[in-house]
């Protein structure tokens, strides 16, 4: 019975999540896929008057979210997003999780069905540091991609350029792009983002909506 009581109710918001939160209009109903311990939702509920639901499959994260009072569903992103009704949320968020799902296209299609606004963030494989690592003959490792190639939850890697082409192919229009430094802060300039951004956050809209 030791598992839950010691969990902190709120954690400080990760720098990149601060920027995700800024994309969410106050009062929105938010679905956070891969919500982890629910810190983003907790922040949105407490500070931006939002309501919403998290989805998380990892037992420890799930328990942390519950202990934080965040409504959270133990579902598999690859299999279970059909549980949600069409356009039932104002915004659906997939933060640093797209690279871990089996079928990203299916997940994005479900997200576009569930909401008219999508927030997706993903590490940038095209970061100069990653390119150097490859040039030196090694798989990239960095703050954004800390895992060894043989022991990583990340199934897919993309550069920002690849990612944007991919979104376009899926009928998702980039409404806003927030490139981040490796520390998760906003890059001052958009120029050369594919080389200098550790990750980027995208606000997407299904074309025509």
């Amino acid at each position: 019975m030791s598992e839950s009581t010691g969990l902190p109710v709120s954690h400080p918001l990760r720098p990149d999540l601060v920027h995700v939160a800024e994309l969410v209009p106050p009062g929105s109903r938010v679905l956070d896929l891969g919500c982890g311990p629910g810190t983003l939702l907790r922040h949105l509920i407490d500070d931006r008057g939002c309501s919403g639901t998290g989805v998380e499959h990892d037992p420890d994260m799930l328990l942390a979210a519950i202990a934080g009072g965040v409504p959270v569903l133990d579902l598999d992103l690859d299999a279970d997003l059909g549980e949600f009704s069409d356009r039932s949320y104002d915004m659906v968020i997939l933060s640093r999780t797209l690279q871990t799902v089996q079928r990203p296209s299916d997940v994005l299609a479900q997200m576009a069905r569930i909401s008219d606004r999508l927030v997706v963030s993903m590490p940038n494989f095209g970061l100069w540091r990653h390119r150097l690592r490859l040039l030196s003959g090694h798989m990239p490792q960095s703050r954004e991609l800390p895992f060894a190639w043989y022991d990583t939850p990340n199934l897919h890697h993309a550069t920002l350029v690849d990612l944007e082409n991919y979104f376009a192919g899926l009928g998702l229009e980039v409404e806003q792009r927030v490139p981040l430094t490796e520390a998760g802060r906003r890059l001052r300039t958009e120029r050369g983002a594919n080389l200098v951004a550790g990750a980027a956050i995208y606000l997407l809209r299904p074309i025509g909506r």
Partner: protein
Amino acid sequence: MTTPDPKPTADPAVEGVGLVETRSVQLFTRDDPLRLAGGASLDEVNVAYETYGRLNDTADNAIYICHALTGDAHAAGLHVGEERPGWWDNLIGPGRAIDTDRWFVVSSNLLGGCQGTTGPSSTNPETGEPYGLDFPLLDMSDFVTVHRRLGEHLGVRHWHAVVGGSLGGMQVLEWELTHPEDMDRAVLIASSSRLTAQNIAFSAVGRQALMRDENFQNGRFVEDRTPDVGLSIARMMAHITYMSEDAFTEKFGRSHQYGAPSRGFGIDFAVESYLDHQGETFLTRFDALSYLYLTRVMDYFDPFSRPDALTRLQHDPVSNLIISFDTDWRFSTAQSRRIMRTLESARIPVTFREIQSPWGHDSFLLPIEPYHATIRAFLEYDDGGQARHE
């Protein structure tokens, strides 16, 4: 209410809520009868209940426990002279997931039951005889009516949480749909908003076993000629559905009760002996008529089919925790997911977790660490003072 003998980790008399007793109160009388959803009324309703922990000064730390088909008011602690603690003792007690140092816990035997609350084997005040099949058919909402009255009697008008497994979860669901203002949180474990055809089929065979017993006598059976054969068969069959195939395999395999095989039609395999024992012990604590009445309530329960089923709850949302167990094939994860989906799409705050456990439906009675941790986290999260203190 039995099976894969959870290892007692501590002496419940020392570690748990200690000695308890079941109390009884008359909640409805001839002057103030219980009006049932079906139109009939009952002039006298007595309810057996137990409480654990203390109600605080603001009366906002109360938790109601709704029991399953064959449960009773004795959820935790020990009765004098007994060694076996209450049926949910591993969950309820000081420092346990439902922490009685913090919460005031109420557990009652439900209407139609046979463990101290008025049911079909109680004496009909009109005739001085047991009701038998003259007892009116019950509805899930009748259980809720009686629970609420018990709350009033105990000085609790608002519950921090209402908690139940299996049929208990169905009561929780009915309660929050009809009186959401009564509670802040609802916990529904291994439950269902609508039995499947297979569920109803199992119930039907159980009832047929009872009603075709030669002693059944249209419900007018007498003390020494009760439909024991039927009731024990009903229990044995139901019991199979409460366990998973893996649980049976792990517990018994194909081992023989007496070491070596003794071929024939008697009890030979260990699993046969176990079921026989389950059927027999059930007779000492359960009543055939209660079995009929209570299973039938479950069959007809389908609250989401009612027009505007969710309107009240949407107006006054209750935070829900839905838990299922992956090997439960009687009240499967699909059934819990249906509740989850319905509430979520109605914008009711809902948390859902499927727990891995090899024990099937009976898992909800067992001390499974992630399961209990989930309940504790849900009951104890700080809602920032949004709770209604009425």
